[in-house]
């Protein structure tokens, strides 16, 4: 790795960490509120996995950055404009079907992404990808099974699953957008060609939606900007709750 690509790795690792952190936080909101105890456990297990993954990537970003910031510092003491998660993961939970829609679209992408990242020339990223993809395979399968169960369920569950996918579909294109840092890192052998993941993602989503007796994802005007720090209003609300303690009592410890 040259010095240039190392400086590109910081925002790269931050993006991965921010996605996992915000989605993990969102899923944690279900704790004690899910439709059944099994689903409650499942969603919080997913949340726990994602927060563990966020810790790996944010710690690495902080280490490369060299300013003494660890994962906690990056999670709790940055403002919304400094977060570079995709817009999809910050979308509200809505009802259970909307949460499943978000999870299905994201986990399917994340599994493909991490499988590709496992071949990265950066050893730390490659090792983290291999570790995380084992967990994400469970997430993708859990979400896909629920898409089928709700889509091919009652009239009401079908309607809700469709509505959930409809809401989330506007944030899909952002997952495959290549930023400047992505292209530079890809050229250095450390990044992932996100655009190249699209056909496999489309095929898997189409397969599951067909099995679920659901229509293909609607074509809607795409919303992007999360990777550049331009977020929907939802992120501020997530952060105000997540960061409250460290904002009110900086550097407080247990």
């Amino acid at each position: 790795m040259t010095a240039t690509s190392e400086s590109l790795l910081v925002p790269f690792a931050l993006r991965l960490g921010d996605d996992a952190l915000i989605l993990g936080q969102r899923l944690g909101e279900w704790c004690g509120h899910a439709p059944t105890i099994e689903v409650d456990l499942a969603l919080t297990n997913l949340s726990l996995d994602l927060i563990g993954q966020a810790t790996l990537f944010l710690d690495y970003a902080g280490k490369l950055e060299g300013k003494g910031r660890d994962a906690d510092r990056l999670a709790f003491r940055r403002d919304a404009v400094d977060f570079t998660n995709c817009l999809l993961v910050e979308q509200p939970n809505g009802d259970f079907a909307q949460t499943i829609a978000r999870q299905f679209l994201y986990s399917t992408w994340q599994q493909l992404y991490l499988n590709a990242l496992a071949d990265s020339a950066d050893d730390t990223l490659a090792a983290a990808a291999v570790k995380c993809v084992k967990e994400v395979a469970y997430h993708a399968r859990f979400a896909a099974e629920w898409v089928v169960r709700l889509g091919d369920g009652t009239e009401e569950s079908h309607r809700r699953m469709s509505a959930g996918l409809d809401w989330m579909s506007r944030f899909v294109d952002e997952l495959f957008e290549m930023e400047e840092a992505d292209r530079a890192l890809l050229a250095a052998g450390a990044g992932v060609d996100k655009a190249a993941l699209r056909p496999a993602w489309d095929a898997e989503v189409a397969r599951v939606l067909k099995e679920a007796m659901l229509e293909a994802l609607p074509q809607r005007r795409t919303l992007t900007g999360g990777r550049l720090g331009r977020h929907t209003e939802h992120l501020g609300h997530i952060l105000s709750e997540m960061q409250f303690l460290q904002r009110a009592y900086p550097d407080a410890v247990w």
Partner: protein
Amino acid sequence: MRAVWGVLAEVPDPEIPVISIVDLGIVRTVTAEPPRVTITPTYTGCPATQAIERAIRNALDQAGFTDVAVATAISPPWSTDWISNEGRQKLRAFGIAPPPRGDGRGRLTEERPAVCPHCGSEETEEISRFGSTPCKALWRCRSCAEPFDQFKCH
């Protein structure tokens, strides 16, 4: 360094205290130069990882190995295939079905029913793939009607 392995073999897993961290396969290496124990987390978000680090630190200190460092490594990733045979037997005796053998990444789509740790029946069904801890799934036996945990293949 054999003495260090002996100390580690007495450190229980905080979530499943019938098996030691050595049986669980999370102690990766013990080296003399430099004196260091390297462990690996089961799941990235496993809250027990920090508790395990502390438990190892305490056990080593008490046994007089105050100069031995404890480090964490994530590569290669932990697999349930690293659970020892003795560990698998202890899990079963504790009422937890041991994980099927084979790499979890490849096995996800062709799971066989878990064997009931209470009566040995294979007439079992999965209730939830996510159980009381990240590493376990919840199953039910149709023969003896008992619910049980299965250590997930990973």
